[in-house]
């Protein structure tokens, strides 16, 4: 199938988009910002007959706060996330990741929903969303489903999204004054670099003794999907975390990294980088 033979359907609103998805999904691919799909089309990795261009569905582009949760529409661009005071104040690990994705041009077009749907293990928005314990909202004619992000990813590049559904938004509990968090990425250069490893951490609810109620550590690009570093998380909540143990705590996360060798780095190197990057992230979260 040549690209000149591919039709593009542009719905006027969400209802129309869901109608098209409900009718017939044969050879249909959803395109949002296009930054992944267009490259895959040109490389012949995907061969759809039709594209559903949802960029026109304006009601899916928003960043808002409802009660104590931040909601981000699937069509919010990285620039939208970086420039919103809501995300800057209540989801800064995600803002840090958004600033480091691609370069300015990509941040103006690439969308959060696109990154979720592309399901790359090196998708930079995913570790912060795991650390924030985000919920992915999917929509179809039948209604909406709230799926915890860890259940949304089934295996390498496989998601729980049904053929008649699209990703509508994500939401998570806003970070507050007693919460800490950070995101760190290692790429081969500062911009337009796919992550060799990236890590995100969120520590919530520091109590009187200085211990946290809840800790989440998420590792990117070291497994077929994003991995939580659970042993490390337990160490972060059991007792107050002090500066002298940060290195040891961060090293615990190496156990959860099962990376591969590829052109960006060897498995061995990636495992070591996990410990160093997480050390930097924890240091910044707690003392930065």
């Amino acid at each position: 199938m040549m690209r000149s033979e591919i039709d593009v359907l542009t719905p006027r609103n969400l209802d129309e988009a869901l109608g098209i998805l409900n009718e017939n999904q044969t050879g249909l691919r959803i395109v949002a910002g296009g930054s992944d799909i267009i490259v895959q089309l040109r490389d012949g990795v995907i061969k759809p007959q039709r594209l559903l261009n949802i960029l026109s569905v304006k009601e899916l582009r928003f960043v808002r706060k409802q009660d104590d949760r931040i909601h981000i529409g699937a069509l919010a661009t990285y620039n939208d996330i970086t420039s919103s005071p809501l995300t800057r104040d209540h989801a800064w690990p995600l803002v840090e990741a958004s600033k480091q994705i691609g370069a300015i041009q990509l941040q103006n077009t690439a969308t959060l929903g696109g990154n979720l749907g592309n399901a790359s293990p090196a998708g930079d928005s995913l570790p912060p969303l795991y650390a924030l314990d985000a919920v992915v909202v999917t929509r179809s004619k039948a209604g909406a489903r709230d799926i915890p992000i860890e259940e949304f990813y089934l295996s390498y590049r496989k998601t729980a999204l049904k053929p008649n559904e699209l990703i509508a938004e994500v939401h998570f509990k806003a970070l507050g004054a007693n919460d800490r968090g950070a995101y760190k990425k290692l790429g081969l250069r500062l911009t337009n670099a796919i992550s060799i490893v990236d890590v995100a951490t969120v520590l919530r609810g520091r109590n009187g003794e200085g211990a946290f109620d809840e800790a989440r550590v998420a590792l990117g690009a070291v497994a077929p999907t994003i991995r939580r570093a659970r042993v490390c998380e337990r160490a972060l909540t059991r007792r107050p975390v002090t500066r002298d143990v940060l290195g040891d705590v961060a090293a615990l996360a190496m156990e959860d990294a099962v990376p591969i060798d590829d052109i960006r780095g060897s498995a061995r190197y990636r495992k070591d980088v996990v410990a160093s990057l997480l050390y930097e992230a924890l240091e910044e979260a707690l003392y930065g």
Partner: protein
Amino acid sequence: MVNTLLIVLDFRLEKVPSSEKTALRIEKTVNFRLNGEQVTVKCPPAYTLLEVLREELHVTGPKEDCAKGECGACTVIKDGAPVCSCLVLVSQAEGSEIMTSEGLVKDGRLNPVQEAFIEQGAVQCGHCIPGMIVSASALLMRNQHPTVDEIRTALSGNLCRCTGYSKIITAVQEAAKNWRQ
């Protein structure tokens, strides 16, 4: 030498969309504003904005190099924001305002960034320059007092393999002064 030339020619033909002539070719009408003028173009809807600008509308300021959003040679301003036109479907440009390096020229006069690139000699082979100028102009449209760091960030998605960037940075600093006047 001849072999290399043939390979280059072959490579070009592969990439030129107008060589895709099949009975199944789908065409749709797309409307947008290009450099201040309304355009209507009939083309395959899954072509990129870059392909349509270059091959159908013959606006050749934006260049195709990496075709994956990494080099910035195809940068255009879409509704006020710099984007890679190789990563935008022409269908996604419907109703939008597109500006290329050609559109920065007003009444035959180059804009301050274009002037400064010439004056500072911030050009060698020239291939990346339209993209550089578009990115730099997009920066100066929203920030007339950029720091060197802000200039570097604004141009970090534009690769140049000749100049080493220092003259480009100087040119944008000079352009900022003239932009303010």
